[in-house]
């Protein structure tokens, strides 16, 4: 199914959504005006939080189509962007590189998950 048919001719999402933007089910319900496909997005987000990319991959729709439909659903509170844990949100700019604090947490988390992982000594 192509973007055009899915979104009734619209080619641009109204919300600024990244490929990694995560969506959660919200309190709203899809209205009759919304595409049938919105139900499929909602069903996936009810199971767990899903990124824009994951939704597109699972539904086999182009990312742009998903972004346009997700924009509709955000406007109707059917979907919400979950709020991350407060102490992690040290950066107000989501485009910025992750803080060293977050990188250290990632390193620790990976080591806990794969105690046998081999990290190579840093060159230079």
């Amino acid at each position: 199914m192509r973007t055009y048919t899915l979104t009734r001719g619209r080619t641009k999402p109204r919300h600024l959504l990244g490929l990694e933007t995560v969506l959660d089910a919200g309190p709203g319900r899809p209205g009759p005006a919304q595409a049938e496909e919105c139900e499929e997005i909602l069903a996936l987000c009810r199971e767990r939080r899903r990124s824009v990319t994951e939704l597109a991959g699972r539904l086999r729709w182009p990312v742009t189509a998903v972004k346009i439909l997700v924009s509709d659903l955000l406007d109707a509170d059917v979907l919400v962007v979950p709020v991350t844990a407060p102490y992690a949100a040290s950066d107000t700019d989501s485009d910025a590189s992750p803080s060293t604090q977050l990188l250290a947490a990632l390193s620790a988390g990976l080591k806990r998950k794969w105690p046998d992982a081999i990290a190579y000594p840093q060159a230079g």
Partner: protein
Amino acid sequence: MPSPTPRPGDPAVGLRTPSRPPAGAPTVLKVVIAGGFGAGKTTAVGAVSEITPLSTEEYLTEASADVDSLEGVEAKQTTTVAFDFGRLSLPDAPVPLELFLFGTPGQDRFVDLWYDLSRGAVGAVVLVDTRRLESSFTPVSFFEDIGLPFVVAVNQFDGAHRYHPEQVRAALELPASVPVVTCDARDPNHVAGVLLTLVGHAVKNAAAGPVRPTSTTTLQDA
């Protein structure tokens, strides 16, 4: 031996109590895994992902002549690119984290996608198949130019001549600061190790001062 009853006022107890997870969703971090055709990108994503790697499609608007037919639906020339998505959660990290992995092919028609994926990313892994070393040049220079920390992981394919990482470093003209490691993309411990190497490298970069993708960073290469 009975453990002492935790007292509410004890700060050490409060810190370790797992029954009170911090409010809010895990923080999302992302890593880009780039490489040439058949370099093992999907394999590497799948080795550590909690879900089977998803192939996701996006349309890129392009001025190039190399375009796929889009049934004439849009006026602009668009090309379809597919990239892999995988994710893993790290609930035991000091801060609850979710790591997104994006696997993306190495041709330069993907550059717009690389910009998107690189924004705010931890860094990139360039997977190298030594039988097609030249396909690594484009992603390597892209990540160098935008100042995203990256590591090079050399896949050890069966039957392929095994190059020493230093030979690959020389062939790709990589500075000594860029880690070059060998890996088997099928082995989760290897891929996790490459990710750890990348994170270590990113920490080092961050400590050396914020690298901004501006012209000043590309000019000086001392």
